[in-house]
């Protein structure tokens, strides 16, 4: 399941809802991305996340479907916010649930790595030098690339 929203989310409540009434889930792995107050050497006052409505939902759904194809997940959830956010604010939640922990750990890592390079979001940071668009990181491409080959765990 995926959601794109301006509003904040409550990770505890989201995880509880994901597993409610289920008896087949052995574990849930969650990742919560937050706004950091530093980018390189610049202090960040706030950031604005722009996205491409329509494509964002389609790409996140495709990434979520791919995770469910590769790993035996009992449930999965991706929430991504957009709009103006301040340091400490939550940006993204990835939660994966499965009967056994390995699938949940691997799928959560896959989801966050892939959405960083495929979901159409762009960050505009407010720094003392003025507003600056965040540049894509080569390290994110490398992190995503290792998932291009189907891992053994998914066979």
């Amino acid at each position: 399941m995926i959601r794109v929203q301006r509003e904040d989310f409550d990770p505890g409540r989201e995880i509880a809802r994901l597993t409610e009434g289920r008896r087949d889930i052995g574990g849930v792995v969650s990742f919560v991305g937050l706004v950091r107050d530093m980018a390189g050497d610049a202090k960040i006052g706030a950031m604005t996340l722009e996205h491409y409505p329509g494509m964002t939902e389609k790409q996140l759904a495709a990434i979520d479907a791919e995770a469910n194809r590769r790993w035996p997940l009992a449930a999965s959830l991706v929430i991504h916010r957009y709009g103006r956010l301040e340091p400490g604010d939550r940006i993204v939640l990835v939660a994966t649930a499965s009967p056994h922990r390995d699938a949940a750990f691997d799928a959560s890592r896959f989801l966050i790595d892939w959405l960083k390079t495929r979901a159409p979001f762009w960050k505009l940071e407010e720094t003392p030098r003025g507003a600056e668009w965040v540049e894509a990181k080569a390290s994110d491409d490398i992190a995503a690339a290792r998932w291009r080959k189907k891992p053994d765990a998914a066979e």
Partner: protein
Amino acid sequence: MKVLYFAWLRTRIGKPEDAIELPKGVGDVRGLIDHLRGLGPGYDQALKDLKTVRVAVNHEYVGFDHRLKPTDEVALFPPVTGG
């Protein structure tokens, strides 16, 4: 054809979208971008380095050789930075 711009492509071009009539002889994304670069200095500056431009047609990523149809929604944007 609807053409959308995001992030610094949008700020350099100065607007979020255009309605473009595909000129005769323009069949793919590369041709569309060449055409757009002729529309003004903002377009030219935003689109001159294709290494920093990503393309989606109808919400799916495509390459610069992708063939275009008049009804397509094309989006041009920098590499994404979500998550």
